[in-house]
Structures are given as C-alpha cells and as structure tokens.
C-alpha cells in the first residue's frame, strides 16, 4: 500500500520524496496502522486539517465496506464444512505469515544478552497476563531507550 501511495503522491507533485519519507518515518514511530497514519500526515501536509480528515477517511472507508460485504457473503455459509475448512487453512497460513514478520524483526536488531533478557522477560510477563500490557510496554521501551544512550556514550 505504502509504495503505491508514494508513487501517486510523487506523480501528482504533492510532495517531494524527502517529505514523503519524513512523514513515513514519523508514521512508523507512532501507533496505528502505517497506511492510516501515513495517509493522515500526508493529507495534513498537502491540505491542512481538511486534507488530514479526508485522507484518513479515504483510507478507511473502502476496507470498511469490503469487510461488511464479505461478512454478509459469508454469513449464510458459516456452518458449511468447506468454508470452515477454508478459514482454518487460512488461519494456519496467517501464523506462518506472522512467523515471517517476527523473523524480520529478529534479524533487524543487534542482539546482546541484555536485549535478549529484557525482551524475553516482556514475552513471559505478557503471556502470563495480558493486562500487564501497559507496564510491560513502558518497561521495555523505557529500558531499551535508556540503554541505547549508554551504549552511545561509552
């Protein structure tokens, strides 16, 4: 989705490649689907508040109707053994896909025993109790952020 957005924005001359990458990198460092946050920020840059609003809506509305349509299409067949088999197969594939996401994340980091320990502790705590999310989030982000500084100074 993002490469298409970049290509279109460039073609229409709305913003330079530099500006696009600035918005994209900011979009990646705040929460929310990247396509959505990027759209809102590019919208803001190109046409102010109204631009942000319209860009945000434009990126949400088509999938919204796609889901509603699919939900209605699938409803009469919810009990069908083939449809259920199909969805079960898709679900297993999704797990494989998420494995690949994790693999990409693991490869991107420089690992040491400290980082491994912090991340493992976070995983164990969250599996144990997912309502600890806020604590684990602040803990892991805080520690890794501060540790980053120390490494740089030394």
């Amino acid at each position, binding site marked *: 989705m993002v490469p298409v957005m970049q290509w279109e924005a460039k073609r229409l001359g709305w913003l330079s490649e530099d500006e696009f990458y600035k918005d994209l990198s900011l979009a990646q460092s705040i929460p929310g689907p990247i396509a959505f946050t990027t759209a809102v*920020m590019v919208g803001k840059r190109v046409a102010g508040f109204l631009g942000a609003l319209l860009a945000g809506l434009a990126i949400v509305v088509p999938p919204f109707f796609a889901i509603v349509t699919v939900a209605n299409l699938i409803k009469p067949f919810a009990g069908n053994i083939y449809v259920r088999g199909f969805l079960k197969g898709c679900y297993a594939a999704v797990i494989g896909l998420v494995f690949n996401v994790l693999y990409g994340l693991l490869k991107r980091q420089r690992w040491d025993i400290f980082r491994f320990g912090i991340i493992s502790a976070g995983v164990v705590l969250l599996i144990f109790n997912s309502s600890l999310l806020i604590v684990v989030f602040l803990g892991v982000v805080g520690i890794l952020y501060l540790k980053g500084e120390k490494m740089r100074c030394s």
Partner: protein
Amino acid sequence: MFLSLLMIFFKVGFFAFGGGWAIVGILRNEIISKDILSAEEFTELLSVAQITPGPVAINLATYTGYKYFGFLGAIMNTFVFLLAPLLIISALFLLARRVRVDKERWSGALTGITTVMVTVTIYSLFVPNIRDLLMVSIAVGVFLCIWKYKIHPLILIFLSGFIGAVFYGLL
C-alpha cells in the same frame, strides 16, 4: 458488553506499533477472556480480516464490531481503534518542537517492544488453536515459502484455504 469491546480496541490502539500483528495476540486474549467471541469465532474473524483488502487490524476492528452490533457497531469500533493514532498525531502537531526524542534510540526501543508483542501474538495464535499436524505443516510451509522463495503471502493464504477446505471438508 459493547462498551467493553470498544474499550479493548481503544486501549490496544495505543500499542499498535510496527503493523497490526503486534496487537493481535493481546486482542485475542482480551476478547476471549471477556467472552465477546469464542476461540473458534476469533479464528474465523482473523482469517476473514486477513484475506479482505485493508490493514488487518482495522479489518479486525470493523468485523468484530459488525458481527455483534451491526453496522453502527462496525463504525464505532473502527473509530475507537483509530482514535489513539489520531490523538497522538494531533499531540505531535501541537507539541511539534518541544519534544526531543532521539529517533534512532526510539525506533530501536520500538523494534524491541514490537518483537515482544509479535512473539506473544504467535504464542496466542499457535498454542491454544493448533490441534493437528495439517495446520502445523501449513504454518511452517507458508513461513518457508515467504522466507525462501518470496512468494506473495496472499497467494499462499488462499492456497492454504483450499488445502484446508479439501482436507477438513472431505476427510
């Protein structure tokens, strides 16, 4: 129950870094523990959310809202999920130059927490739901196909769906 659904999606909205997969595990645990969906229903919803165009986390929000509270539920649940990014973007524009964050360190820390959450997602998708060898084989096969042969995930997901339909339907 509708309110607790909205609260769940509003809350996880703040933690949805690095693509939707980080929050799927947390979402699953919360949704099932609050009895909004059964484990099997969540499996179905997640599959549909993934094969429908659009970011998977938004699709999941829309579909969960729609399934239990109709059209209005879908709109509201999608909106509350996107409220966190909207609030944070607005805050950034207001505070613009007053906040100083080292970008490299921030993104390093975010990669760390995303790793934590994606691992939790895999755990919570895998451990309670995978009952047979076929699902394990599909999951491993899909991972290898994406990693080694760079085949587009959507093709693999549909292919796995057909394999599932044939095996679970006929056998």
